[in-house]
Structure formats: structure tokens, C-alpha cells
């Protein structure tokens, strides 16, 4: 599991690749820490290379969303595969995020 954060066109883009399972969540949670200081920038969660997500991953996404909402910023998700979209659906997360 690998996470990188870049600023693209005034937005913070977090690119996830690999399996975001419970074991990887510990590290990923650390990796997305910079997103909590979004400073007026919207956040994009790039999931094109994300293979798998479990509830631990969802919790990270929710944390990011909560932090952004608290700062009145938007969180977009982009490039989810069907499996992950299904998980989002099952957990009602589809209603929480905006998708691009």
C-alpha cells in the first residue's frame, strides 16, 4: 500500500495504490495526516490504483471528510473500481462523498 499527496491546480490530491486493509491502515492514516490541514483547498482522493478497501480504510476516508467539512471544504473521490464502489454502497458512504 502506497500513498502520495500532491497539490494539483489548487487542490490536494491523495493518490492511493494497493490494498488498503487493516494492516496497511496504520501507515496510511499517518500518510494522509497532511490532508487535515487543507487550508482552503479542496481534496481529491485518487482511487484509480486502489485495489481493495476494508472498514479500516473507510474510517480513514471518513476522518478526512470530517476534517474537510469542519473547514468547509469539499472532498472528491475519483476512479473507484466496482468492488470498492460496492463497499461504499453497502456502507452508505456513497451518500457522503462527491464523485468525479
Amino acid at each position, binding site marked *: 500500500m502506497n500513498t502520495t499527496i500532491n497539490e494539483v491546480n489548487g487542490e490536494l490530491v491523495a493518490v492511493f495504490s494497493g*490494498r488498503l*486493509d*487493516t*494492516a496497511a*491502515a*496504520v501507515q496510511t492514516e499517518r500518510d494522509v495526516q497532511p490532508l487535515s490541514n487543507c487550508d482552503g483547498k479542496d481534496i481529491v482522493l485518487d482511487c484509480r490504483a486502489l485495489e*481493495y478497501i*476494508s*472498514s*479500516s480504510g*473507510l*474510517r480513514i476516508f*471518513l*476522518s478526512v*471528510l*470530517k476534517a474537510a*467539512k469542519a473547514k468547509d471544504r469539499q472532498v472528491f473521490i475519483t476512479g473507484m473500481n466496482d*468492488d470498492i464502489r460496492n*463497499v461504499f454502497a*453497502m*456502507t*452508505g458512504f456513497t*451518500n*457522503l462523498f462527491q464523485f468525479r
Partner: protein
Amino acid sequence: MTRKVKNIWQGLQRRSSLAILITAAVLIETTSVVQYLFAYRGTKQVVEQYAMSELKTKNMEIQREVRSVEEAVSYVTYALERNLNNPEAIYTLERALLERNHAISGCAVAFKEGYIKGDRWNELFVGRDEGGALVQRQIGDENHNYFELDWYKETIEADCGHWTDPYIDNAGSKAEVCSYTMPLRDKDGDVVAVFCADMSLDWLMEIFKTQSEASSTFLLSSTGVIIAMTNNVFENIEAVQDAVSNANDSMIDKVTRAMLSGDTGRAKINKSQVFYGPVEGGTGWSLAVVFADDVVYDRLNKLSINLAIFMLLGLGLLAFIMFRTVRGFRKLQVVNAEKERIGNELAIASGIQKGMLPCTFPPYPDRDEITMYGSLVPAKEVGGDLYDFYIRDEKLFFCIGDVSGKGVPASLVMAVTRSLFRTVSTHIDKPELIMKQINDAMSEMNESSMFVTLFIGMLDLHSGILSYSNAGHCPPYLVTAPNCDPIPLEMDANIPVGLMKDWSYTAQSTAIRPGNVVFLYTDGLTEAENTSHELYGEERLRKCIAGCADITPHALIAHITDSVHAFVGDAEQSDDLTMLGVLFNKYLTISGNTLHLNNNVQHVPHLANFIDSVAEANGIDPATTMSLNLAMEEAVVNVIKYAYPDGVIGDIDVTATVEDGTITFTIEDSGVAFDPTAKADPDLTLAAEDRPIGGLGIHLVRQLMDSIGYERRSDKNILTLTKKYNQQ
């Protein structure tokens, strides 16, 4: 050195020392012989000179005595011839002669038969009595028939002055005498009487009294009778006589003849030297000085014997010293041989030690889950570092250790440690327990207080879970990718092995992902010193690893080795240098239907591996596999989080059974009773701000699986999940 060469060498030594001894002996003996010969010659010369002077002196003294007698006799002869018919005058003249000449013990005028009428015998004798007073009497009678005696007959015959051989004068002087006789003539010139003057041999003996011990002198008459000799002559002459009696007669004859014919010379008769020469004058006597070699050379011989004894002692001392020296050489030789033997044994020991470590790389050519490489370079012939690994039950057991100290003692402890590791780990699966057993065994027999820093790891090839226990060893690095900073494995502080019995070692575990490398090393790497005594250090090591583009163990270790060599330069290697690299390539495909986990979220990938394997084995479609993965992760993570208190390592067993298109998983744990199915579903309609962070796990399980059941049985939580699937 071979035995043969050794023998030759020892032979040479023995021979050379023998040669020195012989040379010394020859030198010493030659010296003493030469010395003896010189001394002998010197003595001989002295003896000759002495003999000659002795001959001369004695000769002169004898001559003096003889002359005085001869002269006195010739004077009185004249007077006697004028008074032949006057016996009283004859007596008077004889008395006067005796009074003036003490050499003459007595004298007599013996008339021819018939010259004096009446008596047939007329010998008018004057002699000395015992008190020295002169006595006179006529001594001729039937008993003393002088006409028949040699002196009388010879004188008549010789018709001139004549010295007799020594004889015992029974009638006159009553002693052993030598007489000078002179014929007396009447007016007509006819010989009518013989005048005889006796010289006592006792008187002559006085001359021979002053004589050295070494020599004897004797006087020989013209007929070969000994007239006089030194007092000791018979003591010394015994030898001479022995010699004479034993020697060949011709030699004695020759000497006697030479003496009688008045020659001067010398001769050697057996063990005596005889110097002889004639007495001057008309006596016809010959004088001889005899030196018995025994006596003359006695002192010289004694000196030579003493000298020889001293020299033999010296030779003995020399031999002793040489023996000691050679023995010293031998000892040195023995010490050298011992050194050589130890050297050989060390070389053998080094070979044995190398043979103990896995040294064939790649060690498991048939396995593609792991790639390994190890390297151990001891600072001396044998070292105290060790590494070892082997695979049992699809688990890689490996260790790396460093025994305190270096050399042979360390190598022995190293061998023990390695054996214990192999023995103990054959029946124990927990690194901390393996460590404990090794520690207990080593502490018990640790007489020399040596200890070992040891790292024991157990890598489950199915799950990639690395369990490890560390006893004071430097933490291994986890290298996740090329050109990445290495991450030191987290370590509990445990004491090194061998110090304290019954120490409870702890273990940790971490999940190794495919592509990760565990790099283990001993402090010989970080403490490698260069010529300025700087240490290589962990900082350099980390940088070196981070700068490595190829992290397969062989390449990684080669890279680090080059770096250390470049750093150390010409400095001598001070400690054993050991490195071991384990690259985890991929999970081992699970063939069975059970999986064992610990309550560690890091074990989750192992679970995924297990489910993928089961799904693949049963032909379950990818979408369902994904669902099973997610559901099982959520269920197991739930157990991991809630079944066991923090800090307690707990077991979780997962079993998969497949029947009629339905897959059933059971998850068992021994933790506190906990029923996840009792949890209410979360409210999915809440806005993000209001949604709680957790609580989604069981919801997902319910969504994804067909059924979920909980049971508490035998102090175990048993969770059962089922799902129908479409066979591909």
C-alpha cells in the same frame, strides 16, 4: 614438517653436536699429548744434563780419592823399598801413611816366600781399630795365605801399581775394600814384596751419599764388579736389575762392554736410562748414573694424569652443556611443532566451523518464496559469529548471533549455540521460547561467563509474518524497496543469552510484504574500524542500504561489503563480520484449510493470502473472493481488536470448509466472551458529520455473507460465516 625431515634434522643435530664434542676431545687430547711430549723432552734434557754433571762430579771426587791413595802409596813405596829389611821402619812408614790418609783403612807389606828367613808368611799390617787407633801386626799365616789371593798374584803379575776389585779383607782391614797395590823391589830391582793399601768401600760410599732421589750411581771396576753405589741404588736399581734380568742380555752386555772398555755413552735398558763414562786415571773403573723412568717421570706423569682428569672433566662439562643446549633446541623444536600443530588444528577447526553454517547459495533453489544470502568473515581462523537458517513446516527459522570474545573460546560457544538453535527449534515454534531454552541450557553450563547476543526469527512463508525474539543483538533492518531508507525492526530489550537462567524472553512480530528484505548483521559491520580508528557506524550502513538499487540479498550484501572494505582500507579486521539477508518474494500458496493467526493486525495480509488460496482452490469467482476477503478481514479484525487485552498475544484459528457451493469459515479464539452479532447495525443515513467513525465492520460482514453465527464453547468464541458462491 614431516617425520622424515624431522628425523634428518634431529640426526643432523645429534651429529653436529657429536662432531663438536669429538673435535673438542681431539683438540684437548692433542694439546695434552703435545704438552706431555714437550715436558717429557724438557725433563729428558734436564735428566741428561744432570746425569752428565753427576758423572763429572762423581768422577772428580773418585779421582781425588784415588789419586790421593795412589800418590801416598807411591811416596811411601820409595821409603819402604829402602827399609825392606827393617820391619819396625816398615810399620812406622805404614803408620805415617795411615795417619795422613783417612781414605786408607789399612795397609800391609806382604813379602815373598823366603825373603825373610824363618817364617813362610810375612805380611806387616797396620790398620785402625774400632776407635780409630792404629794397630800393627803380622797377619800372614796358613789361614791368610796371601800368596793365593788375587791382589798379591795380580800385582806380581802386573809388576806395577794396580787397583784391585773389591774384596772382603778378612785378615787386615776386616771390611770390604778396594786396594791399591804396588810391587816393592830390592836394590837389584827384583820384586820381593807387595805393598797393599786398602781403601774402604765405606769411605768411597761417602761420595755417593749426596744423591738425588731420582737417580742412582754405581761404580764398576775394570773387571765388571760394582765397587760402590748410592744408598738407594738397590731400591732404584731393583728396577734396573729387574730390567737387566728381563732385558735381553745383549743390551746389558753391550753396556757392560762399553763401560769396561772405558767408553762414554748412554743406553736405555727397559724402563731406565743409564749414563756412563770412565773414571779418569789408571783405575780402569767406570761410573754409571741410572735414572728409573718411573721415578724421573713420576711427577710429570702425575701432572699429566691430573691434567687429563681435568680435561676429561672439562669435556664432560662441555658435553653436558651441549646436551642441555641440544635439549633446549629440542624444546624449541617441540614448541614450534606445537605451534604448527595448533595452526593446523585451527585451520581444520575453521573448516569445521564454516561447515556448520549454511554456505550453499541459493539455499532453496526450488522455492520461490524466499531468496537468501549469508556471509561470515572471521577476524581470526575461527570466530564467534554465527548465522543459521532452515525451513520447517513452511516456516523459515533463522538466527544470527555474536559470541562475546573472539578466537577458539568464542568458536566453541558459537558451535554450542548453533547446535542448541537447531535442536531446540525442531520442536518449538515460538522464537521467545526457543531463545529461553537456549538461554537456560547455556546459562547452566556457562563456566567462563561468555554470552551471546542472539536474534532468532521465524518467518511464516504462508503469511509473511515474522515472529522474532532478540537477546541483545543489534536490530535487523527491514528493507522495503530499492533506494529506500531501511527500517530497524522494533525490539524489546532482552538480555544476551547465557547470562541468567530463567529469563523470560519476549517476542514481537511484524508482517513482511513480498519484496521486503530482512537484513541481519553483527556489530563487526558497524564497528569495523578504519586506520584512523573511526567506526563504520549505523549511519553509514543506513545510507549504504538506501543507496542500493538491487536489494536481492546477494547484491545487497556485496554492496555493503564493498562499502565496508572501501571504508576500512588497509586496517586489520578487528572483529568477525557477518551478514544475512532474507528476501521475501511471495506468499506460499496455502494448501490446507486452516490458518493460524495472532491478534496482530499485521497478520491480516496472511488472512487475505489464505482466502485467495482457498477461493482459487475451489474455483470461486473474483467478485465473491473479494467479498469473502472483506468479510473475513472485518470479522477477524474484530476479534483481534476485542478478544484479547492489550499486550497479550492471543491465538486465532481460521478454518474453511466448502460443501455444495457453500463456503463456511469458522473463526476461533480463546479471548474474552464477545458476540459481534449482537451489535446493532449503524445508521447509514446520517450525514458525514454525525456518522461515528467505527461500527462498520460487522455491518459489512452481514452485508457480504449469507449468514453469521456466534457460539461460546469451551472458553472459546466461535464465529461461523457462510456464503453460497457460483462455481466458475
